[in-house]
């Protein structure tokens, strides 16, 4: 029962998370911001529209949106949200590498239209992803050592209970994952999802030529990926939330997601975007944090 609910819960929570982030940012800059339901309305509208497709695009472009959303849904099926069991148990290496499938199609779709903006976005996206890869891998590898399992649900469920503040490696890994979350989900300080100038975009430049249902799928997929990362980090910081009774589990999950939305919103409001050439140092920092976490783990 709970297992069948996981993917629908993710699909419902994903636009909610985006809404929370917008609300938080609006609140911190003394604006009212769009209502929470606005993201749902936008997605619904996009899904009902036809598309305008570039004359140059090939079948790769047509296939990209389903591949991107499909992979995100599968990833959501493997990430524990409100219980230790998941509908789709997945090895953590497969989990990380599966993220490259939608990226391959998304970056290719960016190049497929023959537009300079698409290429620019693709190039930057691929660069950021390559730099983030070691940090992501090492941190999940560390979680695996802590939880003594190679499966994502197993490693999160296997973390022995105890006070989080007495375990520096957990905090370090969560920190690494948060930096990776910012980079992989095109948030400030790596990318600005709200920028209006094509030349400064990363993710948005790549999807400039997507419209209608394609754009809807891609936006939903992006929101899903952000939610998946949030669930991963909060699951790590609050291991207890994965073994709550069913009545409390769903509200607790919503609370966790809302909390990470607030944090992302606060970080985005408090920082400016970095120069592109600085992103490498940002992600290098993340990798170093992960290495320290592993060293702490083995020093014990």
């Amino acid at each position, binding site marked *: 029962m709970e297992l069948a609910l996981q993917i629908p819960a993710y699909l419902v929570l994903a636009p909610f998370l985006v809404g929370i982030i917008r609300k938080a940012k609006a609140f911190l800059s003394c604006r009212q911001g769009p209502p929470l339901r606005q993201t749902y309305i936008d997605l619904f509208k996009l899904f*009902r529209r*036809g*598309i*305008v*497709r*570039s*004359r*140059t695009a*090939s*079948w*790769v472009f047509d*296939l990209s*949106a*389903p591949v991107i*959303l*499909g*992979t995100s849904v*599968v990833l959501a099926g493997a990430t524990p949200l409100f219980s230790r069991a998941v509908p*789709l148990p*997945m*090895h953590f290496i*497969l989990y990380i*590498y*599966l993220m*490259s*499938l939608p990226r*391959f199609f998304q*970056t*290719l779709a960016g*190049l*497929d*239209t*023959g*537009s*300079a*903006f698409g*290429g*620019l976005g*693709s*190039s*930057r996206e*691929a*660069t950021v*992803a*390559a730099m*983030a*890869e*070691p940090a992501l891998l*090492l941190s999940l590898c560390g979680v695996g050592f802590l939880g*003594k399992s*190679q*499966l994502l649900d197993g490693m999160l469920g296997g973390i022995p209970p105890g006070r989080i503040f007495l375990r520096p490696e957990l905090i370090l890994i969560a920190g690494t994952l948060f930096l990776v979350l910012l980079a992989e989900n095109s948030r400030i300080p790596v990318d600005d999802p709200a920028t209006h100038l*094509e030349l400064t975009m990363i993710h948005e430049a790549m999807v*400039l030529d997507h419209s*209608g*249902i394609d754009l809807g*799928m891609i936006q939903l997929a992006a929101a899903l990926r952000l939610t998946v990362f949030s669930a991963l980090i909060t699951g790590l910081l609050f291991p207890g939330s994965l073994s709550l009774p069913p009545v409390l589990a769903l509200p607790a999950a919503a609370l966790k997601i809302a909390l990470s939305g607030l944090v992302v919103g606060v970080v985005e409001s408090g920082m400016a975007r970095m120069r592109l*050439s600085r992103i490498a140092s940002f992600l290098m920092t993340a990798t170093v944090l992960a*290495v320290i976490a592993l060293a702490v783990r*083995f020093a014990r």
Partner: protein
Amino acid sequence: MGPPVFAFVIALTYLISGAAALWIRSPRLSRIIGFGGGAVASGMGLVAALVRLLQGEPLRIALPAPVPWVASELYVDGLSLFFLAVIFLVGFLSSVYAIGYMRKYDDEGRHREKTAPLLFNLLLLCMAAVVSAGDMLSFLLGWEGMSLTSYFLVVFEHERAESRRAGLIYLIATHIGTGGILLAFLLLVQSTGSFSFHAFAHVPLPDVGTQALAFGFALLGFGTKAGMFPFHIWLPHAHPAAPSPVSALMSGVMIKMGIYGIVRFLFYLLPAPPLAFGAVLAGLGLLSGIFGVLYAIAQHDLKRLLAFHSVENIGIILIGIGSASACEAAGFPGPSRLLLAGGLFHVLNHALFKCLLFMGAGAVLQATHTRNIERMGGLMRGMPLTGIAFLAGSLAISAVPPFNGFASEFAMYRGLWEGAAGGGTLAAILITAMAGLALIGGLAFICFVKVVGTVFLGTPRSAASSGARDPGHAMILPMAGAAFLCAALGVVPFLYRFRDSGNVTVFAALFVTIGILASVRAVSLRRNGKRVYETWGCGFSYATPRMQYTASSFADPILHVFRGVLRPRTKKEERLSGRFLLDLEYETHIGDLFENGLYLPLYRLFLRFAFFARRLHTGYIHLYLGYILGTIVLLLILFR
């Protein structure tokens, strides 16, 4: 029919069809018989190797001795059979491909194309001999035969200075390598008093120092052939210079002979090597991987780029093998087996997708008449089949699941993780290897998005690219076969038969989800409409192909990040009139650091020495006789 007879029949088929190709007058028939015979022999060999692999124990066959007092033998065990299967598989695919590809030399009327099948078949035969040799002499005979035949294939287009230069570099490199192998073997011969591998395996070298020396020489020798960093410099010259089927064969299997040698040495001939050997090997693998892929990103020449990716993949394989040896030495046999299996599986996988990519590159080259990817674009329209096959190969080489490149790296990651869970020095080595593999994977991803994006997608950047068409069946079918195998080996469950991983379930879920979403999209578009229109150009409407993102701009951000190690040389010239810029010239070039920084100076030093030594050659025969006398006296004094 016993295995020796069958092996003899296969060898004879290679030789006869190759020799027949020389004598047949019609170039077309010569091609079909020569390469066709090669394909038949490879097919037979593949079946035989697979059947034997499933049932047999090691096979030792005594051969008539090439040198009177030395016993010569074939030794074929599971490792040899695995490599034989890889050789014959790629041999089969590239022979069929060559039937179509080599047609472009038919109209030259120079008859040199008739030598190609013979050389090609001999190369295959020599490689088969290398992996089935059971003693030092037959091994070296096969090894040299392989090096020489491949040299002649590299300089096949000898009218081009580039080919001749590549051939020379290759010839020097491969002989330095052979020297290293010879020295390594001689150390073993010295301690065992026998030339047979069987004897090597059972008599350990006396001390760690000698072991390290032998291993060092073996690394130099086999590493050079494999294209391991820092002995890789010949590879990016030689592979692009050869005709495409030859590049496929060389990159797909010939460099793997170096891997075979290293595995044979580390796991069979050297009993119980210390942990440091494996660590050194994994470290060199890491450097090969990272430098290989970084240089690949900087290339615009399609075949040169693929050649650098061979350096990268050899690095990945060496990470697997080196970590396997380190795990073994540290007493973790489980992870060691996983790592070795992953490394060897990657040998097969790389052979498949690299062969596929070189065949695709050959088709593109033939259609566009250029190797520069900046002049291609939009080929998916005219060459849809080549495009799909190349895309499959690119996904595989970038280790994107569910293709085969991921499957082997997955096995390696599992081994690394399980080995690292034990802690200690080993954990530090294996975790570094894991981080390195992740970085290599990310960088390879950039490179292949760049290649597929600029070659097959977007709009054509030259007239030749807009008129490009798919090649004929002989070239398409092997590509399709390789692409099918790349996908199949990624999803078949045999490698995932481990306790706690449900990869196959995940793949099934993935296919179903994507399928549902694609159908939803199709139905929705039928209802809501789809309009074909211009690409968004910021409101302007005079977009030209030249306004597309180029491969160089695509690669620029990551090269900028790594500029510290790549050291690009840039030249910028401005012509000003007062304060106004009239003209700007900008040039940037990334050369191989080791080629320019180490090998060229060494080469110049050697030349200086050679010019000095030339003074000994005066032309007087009396003096030469004196040299001989002096040498004999010296030897008598030293080794009395």
